[in-house]
């Protein structure tokens, strides 16, 4: 009997996986458990419910499809003007020379490669644990694969209020690089951290970030995924939020043949708040997928999902967002909006908004729209003397503004806006 090609290739791939050798017992156990999870799930295929709009083949293939390194016409990188602690990875490999000293007040940063060699590490309680919790009810096999195989990443523990942001900078330098990064972040009660991420990382990136936000702690996350047109990235955030904690994550995606960002967030403590937002702009060979799962497991929590995509010239946008309100999570305030702006007739937007509610005293709303630039608004701007192309850019930025407003730091929001403006100018017809 001949098995379907896809399953055969997937099964062969799973057979061939070898866990990293050596290391402390804690990491070995976490890796073995993750591998068992992955083998039980199998690799994702097009027929899986949450992979219907995004083909995982290039993410699951044994080798990364090559991706040319893109040279940016204006060679500045995001966040350059911000005072921050820089941690640099080249094609997924830590570069100590380009990075700042990792020591700081109220913050403890180690590399996964170092921690894995140790007999015991605080990350033991989280590494693969939050990822494991996030595997149900929707399996995320490539996150399990990451936990099993990743050799590098940063482990950050914050006990106070950290003055400057921690900035993870990902450089893509080899056309065939295939990077696995696994970060673990723990904010102790009342702690506060801003985490910045930018860069294409590799020809193919699989990244997992596990974030524990303890009671009263605040986590701000801003990342940009840009530059290289041919890169592929599949990222996961698994977050667990304690009582009265705050979680805010914003992602800007430009360029890239394939980007899938999954966020799995559990509001576990009363009065917690989680905001996940994204702005994506794509022209041509661009496929960008936001898959979000927010679980309200405690009463009086608030969550917001705001995703906006601007698509042109055959670009594809996907949004799969769920709010699950568990029994007893009364007074939940859940909001979800996903919108696409089509700049021509060639692009596509797939949206799958879901609500599942088991509590009776909640306020949840969701909406999804797709549309073109409003001709009335365009005429209004032009009638005031603003040239068509400028007026269109203004309306595109206006469309994205609800997502960008989710960035707390004004200087960062302003910088990303000006980057978006530059991108729009470069991509005028």
């Amino acid at each position, binding site marked *: 009997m001949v098995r379907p090609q896809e399953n055969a290739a997937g099964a062969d791939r799973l057979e061939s996986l070898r866990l990293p050798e050596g290391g402390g017992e804690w990491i070995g156990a976490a890796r073995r458990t993750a591998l068992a999870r992955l083998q039980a799930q199998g690799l994702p295929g097009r027929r899986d419910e949450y992979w219907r709009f995004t083909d995982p083949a290039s993410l699951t293939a044994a080798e990364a499809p090559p991706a040319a390194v893109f040279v940016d016409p204006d060679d500045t990188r995001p966040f350059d003007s911000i005072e921050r602690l820089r941690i640099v990875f080249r094609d997924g490999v830590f570069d100590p020379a380009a990075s700042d000293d990792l020591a700081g007040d109220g913050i403890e940063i180690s590399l996964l490669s170092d921690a894995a060699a140790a007999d015991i590490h605080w990350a033991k309680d989280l590494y693969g644990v939050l990822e494991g919790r996030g595997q149900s009810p929707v399996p995320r096999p490539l996150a399990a694969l990451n936990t099993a195989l990743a050799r590098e990443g940063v482990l950050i523990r914050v006990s106070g209020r950290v003055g400057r942001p921690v900035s993870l900078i990902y450089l893509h330098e080899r056309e065939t690089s295939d990077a696995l990064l696994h970060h673990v972040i723990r904010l102790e009660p009342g702690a506060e951290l801003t985490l910045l991420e930018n860069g294409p990382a590799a020809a193919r990136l699989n990244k997992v970030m596990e974030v524990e936000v303890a009671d009263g702690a605040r986590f701000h996350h801003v990342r940009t995924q840009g530059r290289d047109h041919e890169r592929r990235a599949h990222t996961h955030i698994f977050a667990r939020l304690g009582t009265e904690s705050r979680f805010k994550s914003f992602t800007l995606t430009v360029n890239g043949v394939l980007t899938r960002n999954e966020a799995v967030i559990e509001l576990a403590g009363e009065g917690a708040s989680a905001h996940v937002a994204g702005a994506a702009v794509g022209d041509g060979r661009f496929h960008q997928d936001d898959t979000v799962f927010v679980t309200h497991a405690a009463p009086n929590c608030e969550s917001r999902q705001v995703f906006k995509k601007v698509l042109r010239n055959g670009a594809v946008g996907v949004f799969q967002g769920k709010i699950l309100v568990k029994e007893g999570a009364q007074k939940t305030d859940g909001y979800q909006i996903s919108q696409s702006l089509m700049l021509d007739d060639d692009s596509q937007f797939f949206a799958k908004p879901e609500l599942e509610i088991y509590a009776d005293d909640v306020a949840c709303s969701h909406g999804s729209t797709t549309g073109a630039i409003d*001709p009335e608004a365009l*005429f*209004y701007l*032009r*009638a*005031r003397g*603003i*040239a*068509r192309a400028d007026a269109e850019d203004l309306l595109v*930025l206006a469309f994205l503004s609800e997502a960008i407003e989710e960035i707390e730091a004004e200087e960062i929001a302003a910088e990303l806006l000006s980057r978006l403006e530059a991108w729009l100018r470069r991509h005028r017809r």
Partner: protein
Amino acid sequence: MLEIRNLNVKLEEEDKVILRGVDLTVGAGEVHAIMGPNGSGKSTLSHVLAGKEGYEVTEGSATLDGADLLEMEPEERAAAGLFLAFQYPVEIPGVGNMTFLRTAVNAQRKARGQEELSAGDFLKEIRARAKQLKIDAEMLKRPVNVGFSGGEKKRNEILQMAMLEPKMCILDETDSGLDVDAMKLVAEGVNALRSPGRAFLVITHYQRLLNHIRPDVVHIMADGRIIKSGGAELALEVENNGYGSLLGEVA
């Protein structure tokens, strides 16, 4: 200043003729009013002059100081000095009123080869103009027209007109949806802008706005053409007798 000759216009999408040979000359410093029943083509005339899509000019011409308006993009008409105060100002979420106005002012200055206004000069000027129109700072910060009342929207149109300093101002039913106080405020704003180098074309269904903005010439429009022109007294005639008698008279 504004010269319209035998203007014939139909809808682009369907075979519906709206303007059937409009002739109109507005000289510098003059205020002309166009009155007429609903569906007479008043608003269409203003849209066609401003360059809105969806209309086809089948015959005739429209020039501003000799320049062919109909050949220009809407933004070029604006830079040439034409301004249309919209009957229904458009709400634009996500674009701040102030950003919008500054972009517009500087786009026009650039198109005319002038230097852009500095942020400081712009702020100073807009504050002074806004104060005259009783527009508070909060309204300037809000997104363009979003959550504005009818009166606020119309005052915002006049503010834009004041900031852009056009030479030919077209007001399309600016009085619609306004109460008496709001109308007075708008009229004061318009009157403050009257000058020898600037002309106005005030389109209105009712005579009452013309009590506050005194026109030099009143035109009555019906069925796509101007059927009668006269002095300010013509507006009063409409007010007293309605359009019916005038239409009958011409027919």
